[in-house]
């Protein structure tokens, strides 16, 4: 396991710091520097892990739950909650090993199935490997949870779970390895993805699009009023996503240092900028700024800054956020209706498009003094090409394998609930419960 490919500059800087410190203390340079536990870094990574967990339960659960009709709210919460449990076990059993054990270019190996070999003293840089594993686990939880929004209000719970379980192993783990794993070919090629723009967002957004195309529209789509039943839940969810996202982005530094601080600051700025962009775009084009709009904008900004968080300065984040806000607004308000798919909660429009915008702009706004790699504005146009390469590979793999998997699951066990069940609502028909 190694995250060296991910953030070479960080390790370098750390080594320098140590060297300086060593010199200062009049000592020889330590040989195994990366193996010494730093309690501050560990404290931050423990915190970051639970922040990312908080993003899924209850973050995504509420964000989505508030947007469906009242008769489907519990089923929607159930999806996120159950995914959280299932992904935990899958990650422990095989996912982590496939993503982070071994040095192959395309996928890890089975050296750490069941987390074999991870003890209390195993280290990963300056933090315990158990913490690194846990942090990555929370990413493996939220990614499939995000997908559920596209198929809300009509998919069978059992089919969804089977599909997402397979997807995690066959799609997520490899892509994660490509970008962050030791020897992964995208990371190795120099594609920048600080905290998961490709791995998490483009990946889940594209899978979501494929899924809702295969699944078809909800009954009544375009005719009945399918508006959100309680945006209070959505706002709570969006807020927890926002707060938790600092674990995502500042946590991806894997240390409590200046880069983490800068990642946090730019995340905040991009989220706010995108939220305002969406709000004003809606205000001008529709006459009223909606609560759903500003919340969607904030999430779009968070998505877009994700790949860039460790590479840009505040001013870059401001521009990136504004562009992402407008771009996703356009995708959701216009593109979706043109193309006519029923992505119930706009997973593709926000995560897919937002992730693409962010990944491209990372190549534009990257600043050498921050993350070690210059971007287009600093004269390194090639980085944009690299970013497009990463985006393209991710989209292609995710789309194709998702399509195969969902067709497979559909053939074996069917995908949609009965029409009557959909009409009655999934809460009662699938889970035997309802809210009053």
């Amino acid at each position: 396991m190694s995250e060296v490919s991910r953030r070479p500059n960080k390790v370098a800087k750390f080594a320098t710091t140590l060297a300086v410190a060593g010199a200062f203390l009049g000592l020889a340079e330590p040989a195994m520097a990366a193996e010494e536990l730093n309690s501050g870094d560990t404290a931050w990574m423990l915190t970051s892990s639970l922040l990312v967990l908080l993003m899924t339960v209850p973050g995504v659960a509420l964000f989505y739950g508030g947007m469906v009709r009242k008769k489907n709210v519990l089923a929607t919460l159930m999806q996120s909650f159950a995914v959280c449990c299932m992904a935990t076990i899958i990650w422990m059993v095989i996912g982590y090993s496939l993503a982070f054990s071994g040095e192959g270019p395309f996928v890890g190996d089975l050296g750490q199935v069941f987390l074999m070999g991870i003890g209390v003293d195993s280290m990963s840089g300056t933090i315990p490997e158990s913490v690194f594993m846990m942090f990555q686990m929370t990413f493996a939880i939220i990614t499939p949870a995000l997908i559920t929004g596209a198929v809300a209000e009509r998919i069978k719970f059992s089919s969804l779970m089977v599909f997402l379980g397979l997807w995690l192993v066959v799609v997520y783990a490899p892509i994660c390895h490509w970008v962050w794993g030791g020897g992964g070919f995208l990371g190795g090629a120099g594609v920048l993805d600080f905290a998961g723009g490709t791995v998490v967002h483009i990946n889940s957004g594209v899978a979501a699009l494929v899924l809702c195309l295969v699944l078809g529209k909800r009954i009544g789509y375009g005719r009945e009023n399918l508006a959100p039943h309680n945006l209070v839940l959505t706002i709570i969810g969006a807020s927890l996503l926002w707060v938790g996202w600092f674990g995502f982005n500042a946590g991806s530094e894997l240390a409590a240092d200046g880069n983490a601080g800068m990642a946090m600051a730019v995340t905040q700025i991009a989220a706010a900028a995108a939220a305002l962009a969406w709000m004003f775009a809606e205000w001008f084009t529709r006459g009223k700024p909606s609560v759903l709009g500003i919340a969607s904008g904030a999430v779009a900004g968070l998505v877009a800054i994700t790949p860039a968080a460790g590479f840009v300065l505040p001013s870059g984040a401001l521009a990136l956020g504004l562009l992402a806000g407008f771009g996703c607004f356009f995708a959701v308000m216009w593109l979706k209706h043109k193309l006519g798919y029923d992505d119930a909660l706009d997973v593709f429009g926000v995560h897919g498009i937002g992730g693409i915008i962010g990944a491209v702009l990372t190549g534009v706004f990257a600043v050498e003094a921050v993350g070690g790699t210059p971007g287009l504005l600093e004269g390194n146009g090639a980085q944009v090409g690299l970013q497009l390469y990463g985006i393209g590979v991710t989209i292609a793999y995710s789309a194709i394998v998702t399509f195969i998997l969902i067709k497979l699951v559909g053939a074996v066990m069917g995908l949609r609930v009965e029409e009557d069940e959909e009409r009655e609502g999934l809460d009662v028909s699938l889970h035997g419960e309802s809210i009053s």
Partner: protein
Amino acid sequence: MKMVMAVIKPFKLDEVRDALTELGVQGVTVTEVRGFGRQKGHTEIYRGAEYEVNYLPKLKLELAVNDDLFDRVIETIANTAKTGQIGDGKLFAWDLPTAVRIRTGESGSDAL
């Protein structure tokens, strides 16, 4: 006896009730309803779609009244619930031959 059913604007409830109490009406049953009528609803915005929410929240009052009070009840509700603006609501009434107070079993106008 008559059964009176009135659909009014929600914020008029307290006023109407006070006026009815003064008349001597002792009981009313109130339901939250959605009204469709001449008054237009509003538009809700939902991600690229605008929904015409063409109902309006109203309150429905149901009250059984004695024949002697009937005219004054109709008049009173009509007056206090009135704002003069579209959507003020409606009053309906029909004959009510049977009424029973469950607690005592009294029936007819004693039950009201």
